[in-house]
């Protein structure tokens, strides 16, 4: 059985979901960004209103167009940042 992906929620995404971290089982052949979002919104409907403003990161880098997510990856939901 493939390793799950680890999903981290920050700031408003964490508030919406109510936790900082969850795991999702992921198919061996991996997921596109669109499929990952389907799974995320299915598991956490509270994310729906954030979908348009949240960027995804994989293993500490913003997800590039066309990237896939594989078992064992660390995915993070990055709401609009406000550092400084």
């Amino acid at each position, binding site marked *: 059985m493939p390793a799950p992906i680890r999903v981290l929620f*920050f700031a408003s995404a964490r508030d919406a979901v109510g936790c900082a971290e969850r795991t999702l089982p992921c198919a061996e052949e991996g997921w596109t960004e669109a499929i990952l979002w389907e799974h995320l919104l299915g598991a956490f409907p509270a994310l729906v209103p954030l979908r348009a403003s949240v960027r995804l990161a994989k293993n500490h880098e913003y997800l590039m167009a066309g990237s896939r997510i594989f078992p064992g990856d660390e995915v993070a939901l*990055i709401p609009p940042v*406000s*550092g*400084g």
Partner: protein
Amino acid sequence: MDIAIALTPDPIQPPIHSPGRETGAVLEFQGLVRGSEGEVAISALQYEVYEPMAGKVLREILEKLGAAHPCQAVTVIHRYGLVPVGEPAIFVRVESAHRGEGLALLEEFMKQLKTAVPIWKVASVKC
């Protein structure tokens, strides 16, 4: 370009600095927590950081900016957790031969910080 980055929950202590013989410009920026948000007086802001990614993105931004605006050294310290009003949430020091490169780098860095680095103001503490 020397790059030093720190993310810390502690009050920011600007590191002692000894510029090189060819350093002609030292720019320091501190972003302080202001005492009000909209009309409401506050006593502190809570910052959250995705630490490994923030460190990585900060370094990537600075490496690219250093190629466009050659400076000698950049130090960035961002505090997280609760930051009281009047204290810096961020400290940036840029050392360069001339002020032009330093100002350009600092300005562009702050813009990119505020669009790309996973650090958030997550809450404020009312007075």
